[in-house]
């Protein structure tokens, strides 16, 4: 890691600000990436973009010719989980994505430069490549009290985001925090955390929520931009449709068990061991749009439901508040204490009404009515 960082730093200082005339294909060949591995990568990323396999040669051709873009990666209020997801990504490897495909000119976690040197480089990069670089943001942005709750290099996150996103050709918000505020934005949201779209309303933002972001989706988004020269089609929440266009529930490998009526009733029961549907354990797959079932994580090894845990709904806006409790189907009713469920309140309501009318009926039975007079009679 440290060796890579040093290498990256070398690249970062030496050619970070120069225009690199080599195409991505040339750089990869120079780095000794075989044609076979390159085409395998193109096929994988074509599948991730939900394009037919016949597009793979087009992707390869475009990547062969296109110049590598400059990319800056800003870290806001986050746990660095998305950087981790990227560094641990198997396809493409760290070396490929960071050193070869992308020119990452600024990334707080992995760059060797520090202090004023790093900040100066960032300023130079965004000035030299204004309107051409891609900005990646990880973490939410604090808005409360002029954003004093988060700062890097003496500037608040909000100020940095406005400065950097404003000059970027597009901003990719990776992870749920950068997309929608995520966990820092959960009630009571003490720092006034929001996602990039809300913090920088004028910027072109692509949201890639998830906790963490699926690095394959990030790669595919960047490749989509390189191949087609435009950002992918987005849904109402600014998420690329190729990755967030379908509900987890509708692509889930356990869906047949849902339709059949075979559910995990308790942790570790027979159904759980047999891989039955996790619906009754509070799975939020029916409320969550993400390509986890098909793309999976860590070189397509597994994903939450694949390993027997219900979906937490992490890629939806306000997931920490709206998707809780994690292991229950329905949220608690607000304003009725933490454990009050809709069923308890509803049953109380119905029983109360029945009791009230029973008493009313009894009172009516023992009391004598007056027949209406001719002047008041309508019927």
């Amino acid at each position, binding site marked *: 890691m440290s060796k890579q960082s040093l290498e990256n730093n070398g690249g970062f200082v030496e050619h970070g600000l120069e225009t690199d005339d080599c195409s991505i294909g040339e750089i990869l060949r120079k780095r000794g990436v075989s044609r076979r591995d390159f085409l395998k990568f193109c096929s994988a990323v074509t599948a991730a973009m939900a394009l037919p396999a016949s597009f793979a040669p087009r992707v390869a051709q475009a990547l062969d010719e296109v110049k590598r873009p400059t990319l800056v990666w800003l870290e806001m209020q986050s746990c660095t989980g998305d950087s981790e997801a990227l560094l641990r990504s198997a396809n493409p490897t760290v070396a490929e994505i960071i050193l070869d495909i992308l020119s990452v000119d600024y990334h707080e976690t992995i760059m060797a430069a520090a202090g004023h040197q790093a900040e100066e480089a960032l300023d130079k990069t965004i000035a030299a490549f204004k309107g051409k670089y891609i900005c990646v943001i990880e973490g939410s942005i604090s808005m409360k009290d002029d954003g004093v709750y988060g700062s890097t290099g003496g500037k608040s996150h909000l100020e940095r985001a406005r400065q950097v996103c404003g000059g970027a050709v597009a901003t990719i918000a990776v992870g749920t925090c950068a997309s929608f505020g995520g966990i820092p934005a959960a009630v009571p949201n003490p720092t006034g955390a929001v996602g990039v779209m809300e913090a920088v309303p004028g910027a072109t933002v692509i949201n890639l929520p998830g906790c963490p972001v699926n690095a394959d989706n990030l790669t595919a988004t960047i490749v989509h931009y390189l191949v087609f020269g435009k950002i992918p089609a987005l*849904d109402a929440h600014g998420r690329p449709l190729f990755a967030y266009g379908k509900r987890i529930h509708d692509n889930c490998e356990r869906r047949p068990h849902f339709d059949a009526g075979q559910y995990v009733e308790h942790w570790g029961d027979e159904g759980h061991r047999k891989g039955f549907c996790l619906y009754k354990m509070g799975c939020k797959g029916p409320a969550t749009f993400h390509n986890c079932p098909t793309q999976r994580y860590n070189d397509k090894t597994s994903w939450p439901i694949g390993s027997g845990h219900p979906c937490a709904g992490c890629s939806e806006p306000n997931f920490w508040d709206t998707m809780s409790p994690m292991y229950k189907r329905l949220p608690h009713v607000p304003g009725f204490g933490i454990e009050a469920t809709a069923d308890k309140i509803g049953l109380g*309501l119905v029983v109360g009404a029945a009791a009230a009318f029973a008493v009313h009926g009894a009172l009516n039975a023992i009391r004598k009515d007056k027949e*209406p007079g001719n002047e008041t009679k309508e019927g």
Partner: protein
Amino acid sequence: MPNQPKFKRYIWELPVRWCHWINMVSIVILAVTGFLIGSPYSIGSSASAYAMGWIRFVHFTAAYLFTVSLVSRVIWSLIGNEYAGWRAFFPFFTAKGRDKMVKMTRYYLLIDKQVPETIGHNPLATTAYTTLFVIYILMILTGFALYAQHAPQGIMHKSLGFMYSMFSAQGMRLAHHFSMYLIFGFVVNHIYSAWLMDIKEHGSEISSMFSGYKFTVKKED
């Protein structure tokens, strides 16, 4: 005036009665299947079974039936007789309606002893029906919004886009589930009141919902 003769009057037209009973049947089906969707039983014997699939199919079919019935009733409120008309459902806006509502409330609170007889719907009932109608709309919108998520970017999903921007999916689930109890509460009230008025008004309140005829002292105009 116990010996006063009463006249047969046609009050509830055929579409009104049909809508009423279709609503009732579909609400019973929707409540039972909806409950099984919300907290299902593990009744599938193999992965090839389709228990939940059928329960959901019945729920969605009943949902369409209910929606068609409700829309038909709204249309009929524009073309039906005065008892079915939309004006009856907003008694607040007429002096007569307000007066009758006060009398009805006083009777229900056991203050007045005189039954405020009404030929069609009484104003207190129509106020409850209007509230119920709002709950129905909420049920239909949340239900179809959740249903449409199986086909994102489809016509239904797109036309219900305003729902997704206002509510989270889990919020809609909670509202959809809880509103069922509000409808149960109404049903308790509704059956009790129909029973009570059948006894008090001597106008065949309950059987009028099957036959369409009520019995009144005044002859039909």
